[in-house]
């Protein structure tokens, strides 16, 4: 890491410790406080990847990864909001005619945005949208952050609408992870002519977000592992610190190694130009690691780990939810195999 990125890391880390850490548990039940969003916006942390004249920080890939990772160590919910806004919402807005005005509002933290992830990922059975007589309508199950003002609606693999109004949040669903944001069914019904239309390949958005997803997964892993490591040095059982027991020590050491190796790979990819092929690898690997490390972290905390108060259980939920909201397991594996072998894996 060069000097510039080290400074960024230390700045973000300080901010997270000071501003996010104290409210990270509250975020899970009460949502992300407007005050925090405003503070982040002032530091340019919300519009992380958008130009400075739009209120962003114009971070490069490595900077973006550093930011998401540090935030995810304390609040995966918040990190995912930043990712959703930067990697999806604002990327679509960039291409829209009056998009910059909306980008400015989002970067300023005065509005938030969301995207219809199920249709963007092409997940079956989560609703669909229909175009008829100049209107687009339908219900999508599973919109994260539905109370956002700006909805980016993906209606086909390469077509989006930006909707401000024209949707109704119909029912909240208690979802596995990222509970700092609501999750719900949203009914859309908007006029095509008066909505902003953008052509953009969903596939590109997803590909470009892979290192961001990986960064959040790595952040979750560090968040969970660091807590497990400190707890193992504070808590005693049978007269000894947990860490003095071989199985505890070896499990933690093994996670620590895996995480270091995976993190290095992420940082090295993020330092280079876009490399969709290898970025698939890091995404898959980091997600697996986050699930496995957060499971161990709960286990090491024993009964306490099972309670929200200790701030560990949410990593377990968020890790799996991140996996599921960032892709379809089987489809991702099929794509990976296709990329590696240069031919299509068949359904036989």
């Amino acid at each position, binding site marked *: 890491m060069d000097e510039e990125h080290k400074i960024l890391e230390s700045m973000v880390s300080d901010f997270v410790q000071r501003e996010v850490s104290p409210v990270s548990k509250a975020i899970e039940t009460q949502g992300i406080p407007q005050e925090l969003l405003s503070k982040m916006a002032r530091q340019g942390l919300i519009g992380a990847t958008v130009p400075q004249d739009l209120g962003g920080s114009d971070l490069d890939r490595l900077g973006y990864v550093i930011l998401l990772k540090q935030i995810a160590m304390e609040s995966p919910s918040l990190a995912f909001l930043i990712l959703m806004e930067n990697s999806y919402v604002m990327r679509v807005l960039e291409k829209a005619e009056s998009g910059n005005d909306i980008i400015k509002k989002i970067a300023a933290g005065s509005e938030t945005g969301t995207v219809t992830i*199920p249709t963007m990922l092409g997940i079956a059975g989560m609703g669909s949208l229909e175009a008829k007589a100049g209107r687009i309508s339908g219900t999508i199950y599973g919109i994260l952050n539905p109370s956002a003002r700006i909805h980016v609606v993906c209606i086909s693999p390469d077509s989006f609408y930006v909707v401000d109004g024209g949707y109704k949040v119909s029912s909240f669903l208690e979802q596995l992870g990222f509970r700092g944001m609501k*999750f719900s069914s949203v009914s859309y019904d908007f006029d095509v002519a008066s909505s902003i239309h953008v052509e953009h390949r969903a596939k590109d958005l997803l590909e470009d977000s892979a290192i961001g997803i990986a960064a959040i997964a790595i952040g979750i892993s560090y968040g969970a592992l660091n807590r497990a490591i400190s707890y193992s040095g504070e808590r005693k059982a049978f007269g000894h610190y947990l860490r003095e027991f071989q199985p505890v020590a070896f499990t933690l050491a093994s996670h620590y190694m895996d995480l270091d190796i995976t993190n290095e790979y992420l940082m090295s990819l993020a330092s280079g130009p876009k490399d969709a092929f290898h970025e698939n690898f890091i995404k898959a690997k980091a997600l697996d690691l986050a699930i496995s490390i957060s499971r161990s972290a709960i286990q090491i905390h024993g009964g306490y780990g099972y309670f929200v108060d200790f701030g560990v259980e949410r990593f377990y939920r968020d890790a799996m939810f991140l996996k599921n909201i960032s892709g379809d397991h089987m489809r991702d594996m099929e794509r990976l195999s296709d990329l590696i072998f240069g031919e299509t894996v068949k359904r036989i």
Partner: protein
Amino acid sequence: MDFELPKYIEDYRKKIREFAVLEFTDERRRYYDEHEKFPMEEMKKALSLKLVDFDDPWKLMVAIEELFRVDPGMGNSIISYSFGSEILKMYGSDFQKKKYLDPVLRGEKIMGLGVTEPVAGSDVAGIASRLSKNPKGGWILNGSKIFITNGMVADFFLILAKNDPPLSKKSHQNMTLSIVEPTMPGFSRVKMYGKLGVRATDTAQLNFDDIHIPDENVVGEPGKGFYYVMTFFDISRVYISAQSVGIAQGALDSLINRASADPDIASSESIQFAVAELSTRVDAARLLTYRAASLLFDFKPDPVYTSMAKYYSADTAVYATDVALRFLGLPASVTSLERLYRDAKIMEIWEGSSEVEKLVIYRTMMKKIGDKDGRGA
């Protein structure tokens, strides 16, 4: 050898399953989970139907399996009102059986068992609660307990405490169980909110501040409490193992249902392999559980087999929910499967963590290995 349950048990299994599917509606499951509320109504209903037969341990085990298969939180609340009753059955006085145990068995009262403390989780010998002789007669209890199931709803508790002054230098021989009622002066309790899963299960912290315990509320012999609790764990761990089998089966059900309903899913060999692998593990866990149960119910409990069953089944429950959720993805993130995923994790923790089970297996096994001809020698 005979690997089949008698027909009357399998018939009973169907009955229980019908109840669970009918009563544990999506709506109720979601409600009790979201609100972290004890399903008193469903529990009363199960009681009034005399659904759970506590006199036939095989039936009880199968009931647990089928209830947890549908909803662990609600299932646990329905069967756990008598949690710890085996101790009173085995070691309680006539007075205690009449006053405390019988109403529980009639379904009129709810009980709880208090072992775990803030600084002593799986390390039972490390508890700090103290029971002292009251010079004026009876005993005085001080201390606190956490993670106590039925903590807010129970009518009385069996509480493990250390004798002070000690009855023995060995801490295992210095613990006593006594019956504590929430109405006793000095008793207080606080509901513990924010569990990852099994949220319909009621959990609380109990505090004892100079509670006067009458002599007749001491269970069995003073100083033997640790052994009573360990004997109980030999029993309860078999049931916990059945809980895990139920959860794992529930996760497998979702995968199978999905494959049955969706040709695109069914045509994936990856899913086919996952179903095959999970079915095998679930069956392995079930067989380990039934073996431990068969010995226990025949009054020959084997701690090695019991701990094998509990550790392996818990691991299987977590593994099965993990695999199923990966394959079913985002649509499953708001369904009963995501709840099972959260519920499953407690199986590796409560009533002896998997780490403790492994130590029990190793130590007990190595003790047995005088017999050079046996397996494992």
